[in-house]
């Protein structure tokens, strides 16, 4: 999910499927300049905008049931179906998907089956503290930068209770009750992708639960 803004002007970019693949992944083309963009990197690889990047917009992949419960006023895309296989079990059965983050030029990914077994993780990565939470029921993964305010935590009815007893709403990233009430966490941009694609683009990526290749 990207902001479709020209990186140099305040103009909109409209994207089409270029018909090209790079490292087996989608290459997008913008109609305004004809530049070719890596879908996974959000970076123009060729054309007038080569070397510039699109701003990722925090989004989430969750179940439709969970999303409309949390956002009753939501609108929803209404096209005919082009697939049927992507439901809350898709991550689990296929073991082919990872959730990846990039920070300070370093990358790390968490396989979904690992998240399912480890639904709350507090990790230091590239010098920052991250909280990774997975809600199994709706197959929703969240990644936050905590600034060190959470040392550990556990899930309780879809909210996170941190070590000091603070209760956090994961959807609003806000402390609702307890010593840290009113504080906010920062949503980090995390990309769900095919494991293979992630590693093609980030061969040096760390992979949670697996020994580093380096």
């Amino acid at each position, binding site marked *: 999910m990207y*902001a479709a803004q020209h990186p140099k002007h305040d103009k909109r970019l409209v994207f089409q499927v270029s018909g090209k693949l790079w490292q087996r992944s*989608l290459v*997008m083309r913008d109609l305004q300049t004809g530049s070719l963009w890596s879908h996974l990197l959000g970076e123009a690889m060729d054309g007038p905008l080569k070397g510039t990047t699109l701003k990722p917009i925090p989004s989430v992949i969750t179940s439709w049931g969970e999303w409309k419960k949390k956002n*009753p006023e939501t609108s929803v*895309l209404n096209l005919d179906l*082009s697939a049927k296989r992507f439901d809350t079990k898709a991550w689990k059965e296929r073991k082919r998907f990872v959730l990846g983050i990039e920070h300070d030029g370093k990358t790390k990914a968490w396989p979904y089956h690992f998240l399912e077994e480890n639904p709350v993780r507090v990790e230091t990565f590239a010098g920052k503290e991250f909280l990774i939470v997975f809600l199994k029921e709706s197959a929703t993964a969240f990644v936050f930068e905590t600034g060190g305010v959470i040392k550990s935590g556990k899930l309780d009815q879809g909210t996170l209770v941190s070590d000091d007893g603070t209760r956090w709403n994961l959807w609003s990233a806000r402390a609702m009750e307890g010593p840290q009430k009113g504080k906010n966490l920062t949503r980090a941009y995390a990309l769900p992708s095919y494991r293979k694609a992630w590693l093609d683009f980030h061969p040096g990526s760390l992979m949670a639960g697996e020994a580093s290749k380096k």
Partner: protein
Amino acid sequence: MKQALLFGVIIVPLLISLLGLAGGEERTFQPRTLMKPLPAIEDAPFVKAGEVKSIDDKDLVLALAVNGHSRAYPINMLTGPRREIINDTLGGTSIAATW
């Protein structure tokens, strides 16, 4: 014997250096062209939550909220080359919905 030496002394180091380049962090953009560019999707239809019939509660959606406006894109509508990018505007922000 001479040929074996040639292979060992020249070809193998050459292969190793080529492999080394391929495995480096520096990326070479060499896309493969499979088809002509597809039409951009700009005016996709959206409905209210209660009006969508084709998806179940268990189906996955790519979703976001911008300036108080929330929107969901069912993943089962975003597959296949024609549907991989939805150009959209939400809460005053232009977005390319893709995953």
